[in-house]
C-alpha cells in the first residue's frame, strides 16, 4: 500500500524548520566572514602571506619530523603488542582476538594519519621554492636545506607507512588464512575485499558510505574556504576548481554504484568493484 501524499507533507513540514534554520545560519556566517575579510585590509593580508612564507616551510618540516617519530614509536609498540598477544592466542579467547584486531587497526590508522601529515607538510615546504624565486629568503642554501629535509622526510615516511602496513596485513593474514593480498599489489584493495566474507564486506559498505558523507561535507566546506580565498585574493581559481573536481568525483562514483545493476552475486561487493 502506497503512503499518502499527506505522510510526505507531514515529514517535510517536520524537517523544514531545522533545514531553514541551518540555511539562515550558514548565510549569516558567510556575511560575517565577508565583512571580516573586508575589514582586514589587502595590505594586512599581504603581510600575513609574507610572514607565512617564512615560517610555514620550517614549521612543516618540524611538524613532519615530530609526527614521524611519534607514529614510528606508537606503531612499533602497537604491532609488537599485537604480535605477542597473537603468539599467546589459543583461539578460544574472544576478547584477546578483539584486542589484537584493535591494535592492528590502530597501527593502520596511525600510518594513514602519517601519510596525510607528510603530504600536507611537503606541500607547505615547497613554499621555500617560491621564496627563493621572489628573493624573499635570506639565501638559497637555507631554502634548499629545508627542501632536502622535506624530501628525506617524505621518503622515510612512505617507507615507514608501507612497512607497518605490510606487517599489520601479514599478521592479519597469518591469523586469518582465508585473507589474500599483498600490500605491494596495485589492486590490493580489490583482492583483499574479494577474500572477505559477507559480514566484513557489509562493514566495508558502511565504512564506504561514511567516507562518502564525510567527503561531501568536507568538499562543501573546502569550496567555501576556496571561494572566499579567491574573492579576497589569497588563493587563485585553481583551488576552487580542484575542490569542485574532487566533489564531482565522489558524487559520480557514488551515483554510478548506486545505479549499478546487481549481478548474480547480489549483495557481494566483489560484483561492484
Amino acid at each position, binding site marked *: 500500500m502506497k503512503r499518502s501524499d499527506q505522510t510526505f507533507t507531514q515529514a517535510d513540514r517536520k524537517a523544514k524548520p531545522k533545514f531553514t534554520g541551518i540555511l539562515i545560519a550558514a548565510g549569516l556566517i558567510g556575511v560575517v566572514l565577508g565583512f571580516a575579510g573586508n575589514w582586514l585590509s589587502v595590505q594586512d593580508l599581504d603581510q600575513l602571506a609574507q610572514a607565512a612564507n617564512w615560517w610555514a616551510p620550517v614549521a612543516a618540516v618540524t611538524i613532519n619530523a615530530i609526527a614521524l617519530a611519534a607514529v614510528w614509536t606508537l606503531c612499533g609498540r602497537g604491532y609488537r603488542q599485537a604480535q605477542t598477544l597473537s603468539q599467546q592466542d589459543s583461539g578460544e579467547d574472544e576478547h584477546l582476538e578483539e584486542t589484537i584486531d584493535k591494535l592492528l587497526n590502530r597501527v593502520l590508522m596511525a600510518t594513514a594519519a602519517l601519510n596525510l601529515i607528510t603530504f600536507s607538510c611537503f606541500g607547505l615546504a615547497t613554499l621555500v621554492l617560491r621564496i627563493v624565486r621572489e628573493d624573499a629568503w635570506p639565501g638559497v642554501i637555507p631554502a634548499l636545506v629545508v627542501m632536502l629535509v622535506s624530501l628525506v622526510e617524505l621518503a622515510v615516511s612512505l617507507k615507514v607507512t608501507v612497512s607497518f602496513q605490510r606487517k599489520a596485513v601479514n599478521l592479519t593474514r597469518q591469523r586469518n588464512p582465508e585473507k589474500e593480498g599483498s600490500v605491494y599489489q596495485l589492486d590490493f584493495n580489490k583482492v583483499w575485499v574479494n577474500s572477505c566474507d559477507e559480514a566484513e564486506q557489509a562493514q566495508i559498505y558502511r565504512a564506504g558510505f561514511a567516507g562518502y558523507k564525510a567527503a561531501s561535507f568536507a568538499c562543501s566546506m573546502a569550496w567555501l574556504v576556496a571561494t572566499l580565498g579567491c574573492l579576497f585574493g589569497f588563493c587563485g581559481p585553481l583551488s576552487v576548481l580542484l575542490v569542485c573536481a574532487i566533489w564531482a568525483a565522489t558524487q559520480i562514483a557514488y551515483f554510478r554504484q548506486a545505479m549499478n545493476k546487481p549481478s548474480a552475486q547480489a*549483495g557481494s561487493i566483489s560484483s561492484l568493484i
Partner: protein
Amino acid sequence: MPLRNRLKEYRARLGVNQQELGRRIGASRQTVSLIERGDYSPSVTLALKIAQVCQCTVEDLFTYEEDEA
C-alpha cells in the same frame, strides 16, 4: 536486533572454536563472533551453511522475536 541464535551452544556441542567453525562455513572468526553476539544477521546462504555444519535446521539455530510494543 530481533534475531536470536543458539550458535554458541551448537558450536560447543561440535567442540570447535570460532576460528574452526568459521573455516568450515567459509566465514571469518570475527563474523562467527558477531553472529554469536547477535550483532550480525547472516544471509540465508550463510545460515543454511551454518545449519548444515551444525547438523541441525536453521530454525533450531535462529529464532525471530518481534520487540513487544
